[in-house]
């Protein structure tokens, strides 16, 4: 999570709102005292423990404290406990969540790595939203009149959770970096929702319902499956990281073998991903594109003597195709998505026979090769590509490349 140096007004507004809400809630609770302290304590402990699980979170993890989130949501949606109605209000929910977050952040702050202010603000606002939707209806008795205490009530809670997660998505999009317009950021956040989000929401709803039926004993029982989910996600993220590292090492092997210039694979991968974004490719295809771009030169290992500067662009077409096919065969062995191998195999074909990713890899690779020849600068290389748009390179891809280069900024590859 890199925070922009100057937070945008939207970010400042969200942080401010969360702060004001937290202060008001704390003051209100201090003045009036805590209703049902047993429940407040139990949920407070749950959220604190859940937030402490941020320890060892990997950078960029979508929801580093799922248990904390689920516990907070459950408290916001709690209307009964062991068959008795509860009486806590919105402000007490906010108080408990804020207090738990403050408590849980002590060890983090002591270590010098506090949880991001944005994440804390998001959590407070989302929980307040859920509580605001539910608690007034519950206290006025309307929810019971409308939905009863049966299946419709469970459905009502689920709908509330969907609304809350949408609210959270909007907040996340507003606080996520300022370099891109709001629309695409919102789209990215909506896509990212499919991970651990539903598990958190479902656990929140089930905790609220479970406590309503059996009392506070439901909390520890329901924590266990969610903790298991969190562990699975962590392990998955870890193995994904080493996998990327290994792919990158494989890609670097041609550089160490002296077939391609230093950093070529990484440069092509970054530039190709940027062009892919520019052309609006969705997340999974961007990942395929990145891997294919990283490994596009693997086939050159079969050459007995390296081509000068690894610039296969100068070779005869048949030879280029042979190298591409051999590269595809190696890539198939790596166990990555077969689509990656297909892109690598196609990279020497004329653009009309290629899929979009292969077109991008081909154009970007040629661009990097041409730039590397020293005399030619970026503009001359682009000129050369434009001359080849009749047969080799797709004009739209070359124009997208030109636009990306004109902006001068390469955005980092996606995390998919």
């Amino acid at each position, binding site marked *: 999570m890199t925070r922009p140096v100057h937070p945008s007004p939207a970010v400042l507004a969200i942080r401010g709102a969360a702060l004001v809400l937290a202060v008001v809630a704390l003051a209100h609770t201090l003045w009036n005292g805590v209703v049902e302290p047993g429940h407040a304590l139990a949920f407070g402990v749950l959220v604190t423990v859940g937030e402490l699980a941020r320890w060892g979170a990997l950078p960029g993890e979508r929801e580093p404290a799922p248990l904390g989130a689920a516990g907070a949501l459950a408290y916001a949606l709690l209307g009964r406990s*062991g068959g008795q109605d509860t009486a806590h209000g919105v402000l007490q929910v906010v108080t408990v969540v804020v207090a738990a977050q403050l408590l849980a952040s002590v060890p983090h702050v002591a270590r010098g790595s506090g949880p991001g202010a944005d994440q804390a603000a998001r959590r407070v606002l989302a929980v307040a939203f859920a509580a605001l939707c539910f608690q007034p209806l519950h206290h006025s008795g309307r929810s019971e009149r409308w939905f009863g*205490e*049966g*299946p419709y009530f*469970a459905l009502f809670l689920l709908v509330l959770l969907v609304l809350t997660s949408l609210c959270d998505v909007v907040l996340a999009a507003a606080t996520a970096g300022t370099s891109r317009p709001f629309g695409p950021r919102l789209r990215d956040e909506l896509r990212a929702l499919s991970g*651990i989000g*539903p*598990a958190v929401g*479902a656990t929140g*709803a*089930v905790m609220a*319902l*479970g406590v*309503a*039926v*059996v*009392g506070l004993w439901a909390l520890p*029982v329901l924590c*266990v*499956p*969610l903790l*298991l*989910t969190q562990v*699975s*996600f962590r392990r*998955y993220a870890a193995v994904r*990281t*080493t*996998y990327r*590292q*290994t*792919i990158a*090492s*494989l890609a*670097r*092997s041609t550089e*160490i*073998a002296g077939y391609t210039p230093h950093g070529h694979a990484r440069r092509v991968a970054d530039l190709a991903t940027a062009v892919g974004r520019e052309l609006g490719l969705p997340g999974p295809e961007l990942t395929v594109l990145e891997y294919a771009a990283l490994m596009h030169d*693997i086939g050159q*290992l*079969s*050459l*007995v*003597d*390296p081509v000068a500067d690894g610039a296969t662009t100068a070779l005869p077409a048949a*030879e280029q*195709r*042979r190298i591409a*096919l*051999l590269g*595809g*065969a*190696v890539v*198939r*062995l*790596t*166990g*990555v998505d*077969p689509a990656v191998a297909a892109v690598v*195999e196609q990279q020497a074909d004329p653009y009309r026979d290629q899929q979009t990713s292969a077109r991008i890899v081909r154009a970007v690779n040629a661009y990097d090769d041409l730039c590397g020849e020293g005399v030619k600068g970026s503009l001359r290389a682009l000129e050369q590509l434009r001359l080849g748009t009749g047969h080799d390179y797709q004009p739209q891809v070359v124009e997208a490349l030109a636009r990306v280069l004109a902006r001068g900024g390469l955005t980092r590859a996606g995390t998919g």
Partner: protein
Amino acid sequence: MRGISGAARAHILCAALCAAVCALPAFSPGAHTPWGTLGLLAALHLICELPGRCRLVGGSVPVGAGSFFPLLLAAAFLLPPSAAVLVAVPGALVGRVERPPAAARRIWRAAQLALTAGAASWTYGFLGGPVTLGGVAGGTLPDFPYALVPVCGTALVFSLVLAALDGAILVTAERVALGRAWRGLVSRSVGPHLVHALAGLMMAVLWRSSYGPLSALVVLLPMYISCWVFAQYHRRHAAHRNTIRALVQAVDIKDGYTRGHSERVGRASELIARELGMEESRMEALRFAGILHDVGKLGVPTRVLRKDGPLTPEERRVIELHPEYGHEIVRGIGFLDEARAAILHHHERLDGSGYPYGLAGDRIPEFARVVAVADAFDAMTSTRSYRPGRPVPAAVEELRRCAGSQFDPRMVRALACALDRHGWSAAANTVTSDEGRTGLPRQRADVRPPASGPADRPGRPR
């Protein structure tokens, strides 16, 4: 059901009959079987199994086939034994099977899950579980925390029965030795089953409460996602191992000479590590170190690698750079850690006359000392185009002779012990990958290479 041994056939038949007998009481007139609940649960299990069948998502099977246990445990809590037996049957009969014979596997799985669910349900009833669930009908609240006791007992029985049946089929159908069939089955699964049982308990409680079956379904969602992520994890883990192999295959493109060598060195290193009593994670790292030890040959010009005849001093110096190239290639792979040192130092000698740094004695990392012995051992025993391989005892004798000057005597002793115990067959080790080896097709300009095929004849490429 062709291709199955008589014992396995009898075993499957016997299990299916037992399951059928257990289910019979449900159909007797006075049984009061809750068909509604039973039907809903069976349908749910069927739905959970279906994605595995579907070609569309076949690549990303959400859950290991037949492993959706929270649902079965919830059924065991909610239903009497004769009805619980039936819940898993439809799902298991249509579920996905990895290998033929499909019919026999489906029948076996249905019988196995049915018997397990029946046993769990019987245990739960025996421990007095059903009354602790409470429910709208009786107007009682669930009796927590006492409700947890029968649940834990049930999970234990569930684990034991499942493991017993698993082991039995391994013995009869796969001909696994009696002593090995049950090893680790229970200890590995009892923890997960306990978690599944807790989820099943909450599901059963909510099912009985006024909120009804819908709310119970929501309990399943985190478990389902967790299983899905876990399956993804395993797929990615396998993919990662393949990628490591692909690094080695990339070396093979340049130097087909050493095909299979890397894998065998990995195995020999693992043998030594096991003999030295290393812990599991280090053993795996050491295996990777063995597999990757020559990855630096990528950096050596192909002309030098493939040269016939003696090398000039200049060429020898170039080849001796390969440990450093290898270290450079794997530098970015975080988890390798100690293995990187092994790749850098596997040509050091104990007396300090090796390369690249001329380290001596204990200054050579432990992993490197292991890989050096494994490397030399396999180089001596494997057959090269210009000479036959030496027999294993002769190679061990040669290693013993060089122990102290070139190799660490401790590693040599460990290898000799391991070989005495497990033996070494180079032929069996030429096909080493546990996923089945896919050979790299030799290239032809006009033919698209097949995705996979039998491994090429070892030998020198053009």
